[in-house]
């Protein structure tokens, strides 16, 4: 473990001022990711800047939507979140364990790194961790890897459950950087790996996530999160699905379908949304949406099962939001 220094900050401004100019400085919030990564050597940090004292802990529901501070605690227990944004509460509850959730923060969750085996073990080649070193997963044990959005340089999967739910809710990430504040639609936060897998997000170094806005919508209240994993709890998704539907007079007017465990970022299944929109919500339309969601997949040797799993998971998740 590299020695590093540790400081705390109490204002957003000083946080940004400390981290932005120093390429070896890193924010730390709940530390459930950072400490593991620093200890195992996936990331080299000389300086950790603890942001837990920043006033970014609020959970504010309102007519415009829901605001979640980057450091909000136990969002999944908030009664309004549970009632009006069930997919969000369910996704959080499906993540990690109660112990980890007692520590973690929404901002840290969005910026957690991939769980790809080849990234996590520094003895393996990984373009994401070490640009140009190669990708062990392409021809290796890629059962957990991406079937959408990968490249010849990286097929890592983004592991966050929260991000998948937020993608189905059109959430916007608020940030503060040295040049000022920005609003980034969650889908645009993550870059696809392309030729530069090590550039994981569009954030500048030192750009701080201050909060997340979930706009009010007609589909948020009728939403569901389904996560399929190798054991009953405390495992990352093989495939997960967030669905949100607006059904009026028996017809789907609008919907969102996002997938987890299948791509380097939360994966919006637009073809599935199109297949479902305008249709009644029934077994046939659910199955068609599932098939559309899985279309265009490019599985590898060990993750072909994910294609069928996506089809069925989408249909199942839609069956959970009623007819």
């Amino acid at each position: 473990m590299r020695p590093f220094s540790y400081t705390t900050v109490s204002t957003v401004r000083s946080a940004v001022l400390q981290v932005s100019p120093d390429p070896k400085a890193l924010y730390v919030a709940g530390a459930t990711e950072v400490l593991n990564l620093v200890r195992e050597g996936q990331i080299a940090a000389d300086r950790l800047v603890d942001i837990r004292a920043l006033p970014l802990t609020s959970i504010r529901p309102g007519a415009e939507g829901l605001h979640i501070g980057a450091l909000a605690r136990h969002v999944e227990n908030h009664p309004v979140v549970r009632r009006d944004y069930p997919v969000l509460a369910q996704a959080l509850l499906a993540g990690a364990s109660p112990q980890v959730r007692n520590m973690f923060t929404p901002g840290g969750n969005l910026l957690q790194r991939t769980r790809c085996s080849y990234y996590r073990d520094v003895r393996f080649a990984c373009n994401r961790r070490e640009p140009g070193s190669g990708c062990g997963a392409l021809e290796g044990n890629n059962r957990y890897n991406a079937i959408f959005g990968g490249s010849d340089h990286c097929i890592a999967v983004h592991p966050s459950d929260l991000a998948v739910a937020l993608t189905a809710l059109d959430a916007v990430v608020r940030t503060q950087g040295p040049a000022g504040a920005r609003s980034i639609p969650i889908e645009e936060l993550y870059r696809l790996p392309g030729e530069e897998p090590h550039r994981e997000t569009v954030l500048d170094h030192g750009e701080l996530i201050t909060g997340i806005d979930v706009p009010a919508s007609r589909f948020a209240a009728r939403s569901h999160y389904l996560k399929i994993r190798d054991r009953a709890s405390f495992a990352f998704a093989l495939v997960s699905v967030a669905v949100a539907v607006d059904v009026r007079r028996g017809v789907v007017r609008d919907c969102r379908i996002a997938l987890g465990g299948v791509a380097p970022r939360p994966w919006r299944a637009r073809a599935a949304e199109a297949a479902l929109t305008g249709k009644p919500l029934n077994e046939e339309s659910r199955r068609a949406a599932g098939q559309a969601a899985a279309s265009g997949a490019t599985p590898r040797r060990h993750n072909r099962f994910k294609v069928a799993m996506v089809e069925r998971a989408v249909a199942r998740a839609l069956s959970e939001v009623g007819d």
Partner: protein
Amino acid sequence: MSVVGRPIARVEGRLKVTGAARYTADLPQDDGKDLVHAVAVCAAVAKGRITSIDARQARAAGGVLELITHHNAPRLRPVPAQEVLGPAHETLLVLQDDRVHYSGQPVAVVVADTLENATHAASLVRVEYAEERPVATLFEGIDDAFDSPRYAPPTTIGDVDRGLADAAVVIDRTYTTPAQHHHPMETMATTVRWTADEVTVHVSTQTISMVRDGLATTFGLRPEQVRVVSEFLGGGFGGKAAWCWPSVVTAMAARLTGRQVRLVTTRRQMFAATGQRPHSVQRVRLGARRDGVLTAIAQDCVGETSAFYDTPPFYIGAATPVPYGCPNIRTTQRFVKVNCQTPVPMRSPVEGVGLVSVESAMDELAAELGVDPLELRRRNYAERDPNSGLPWSSNGLLECYERGARRFGWPERNPEPRSMRDGRYLVGWGMATAIRHAGSDPTSALVRLGADGRAVVQIGSQDLGTGTFTIMTQVAADALGVPVEMMRAELGDTDLPTGGGSFGSHTAASVAAAARLAGEALRAKVIRIAVADEGSPLSGASPDDVLVDDGYLFVRGDRSRGERYAQILRRNRLQSATGDHTPPPREGATVARWAFGADFTEVKVDPELGTVRVTRHVKAIEAGRIINPRTARSQVIGGVVMGIGQALTEATEVDRRDARITNAGFWGYHVPVNADVPDIEAIFVERDDPHIPGSVKGLGEIATIGTAPAILNAVFHATGKRVRDLPITPDKLL
């Protein structure tokens, strides 16, 4: 009143739940002031030679005291295989040459003043390798599989070919079981102090005496010069039963630095520190008549062993001839040298692996014949041990079937696969037979009684966390005739009378036998003193007429003529006695000693998503007499949980190009969590066994044997799909 058989709480329970119990990694020796920390640098490649080690940066890093590589490591002597379990001989000559045999092999060890400094410096060591192409898994090397007539001789009973030819139905199936790693909560921890006269080793081990003898041999010391202590253990499952490198390199570091050195392996290092349950391929052929009576059992296994193998690998088919009465049985095993750590036992290395295929194939046979799986097993009940031809020392298997089935509700089972449902879930019921050889090890105990009437029982064995302290206290209290509160147990120190290992389901039987002998010897000794003591009311009585109850000694027929142990001891000083248990020899045995069990399980399968949950499990066990139903039940719960992991979640995944493990952490190696574990019920069918001291057959392994195949069979019953490649993850059922 007897305390053996009563469900008393663990005697060390309070220490553990309050954190007062100190485990090896918590434990500073003396004041701990001179304690320093060692961290191993492990090989990045799985096969090849080390061409250079650049340690300049590491040596220059803060706090570094020593850096050990094969260039400067103390020379070790080979440890003969019969002295230890697991990698022996040349194979544990750590840091002796430039050869790399498996990924994760230690190639350097850094010692520094703090753990953080040592960890950092270890990350700065640059090792270059001349890499060679490894054999990554069993499958890569299967063409070179070899026999081992010495360690795994084929078993042949009758004529299997004829048995198959005569059969009305033949089942011929191949199953694979993955490599699995032991994951006790406590990783491997060792602290060593090396002085001119003595080497003191605190270590998390299942066999203190093996560590003592192994270290003495490898460093050229006399065993008396090495003291090994292991007071509390956070589990082991066999992973701490073997001779392994962490203890050796810690001792090296202590010798070179003259400091007290501690090494605690990381969770990632646990995937190469001690060895694994080996990957296997098992082909089973069963021949049967129409009524289900078996005419032939043939099992041909291939198992992995390490590339630097020179120790006995397990013969996973060794128990295959035992469970069913069948005139024609043949088992064979071949081995493949793989660039992995040497396989070591994991909670039943033989029955727990080799019977998975047999019990699945029995289920396939039942389905083929349209016979109930339980009925099929009953029809093939073995009246004597088919392997040795000997009568059973005792056998409660039929009663296990009977009581387990009744409790589970087995008769309600609809035999048709996919016929039982609970809402969207398919429900499956499966069962399996479990058997486990019952043995014990030579073990000595010492019981000492003081003038305060308090006694202590000491054995140089150890408590894995299974309840050894507790049962030993119960047995010794009864044998001496004192209330259990007056007896205290001590374990885990080679200064105590020598005990055996905590493995092989031998511990309870060995420890109980020795504690009983010592307790009874001391009781007899004190009685002799009392009857010869003029100051005692017992003076002049015949020793045979003196009874003891609750610490009070009195003459038969006259309870008023007596006194307490404490009173006798006050006049006669501290007294002690020893007891030596010698197991009955295996050669020339006239009976076959086995424990028996039957697992019944229910699964619910989501037919669309492929997820499986075990929803209830009943396990009936005949393991002779149960010393403590409470600690016994907890063994069964742990065993069933391991079986769930074996059936559904656990597998060590290896990259087939470079033989490196790709899921070396809890994020990727899935042990069952609470949500995977249902209500588990244990039924103990008790038997007196005149051929086993105290009728104690041991529970450690029978607790898990049978669980995985029962689950596999239940998944088939639920889905109609037979998965023969463990574990059954959701993708295999899509």
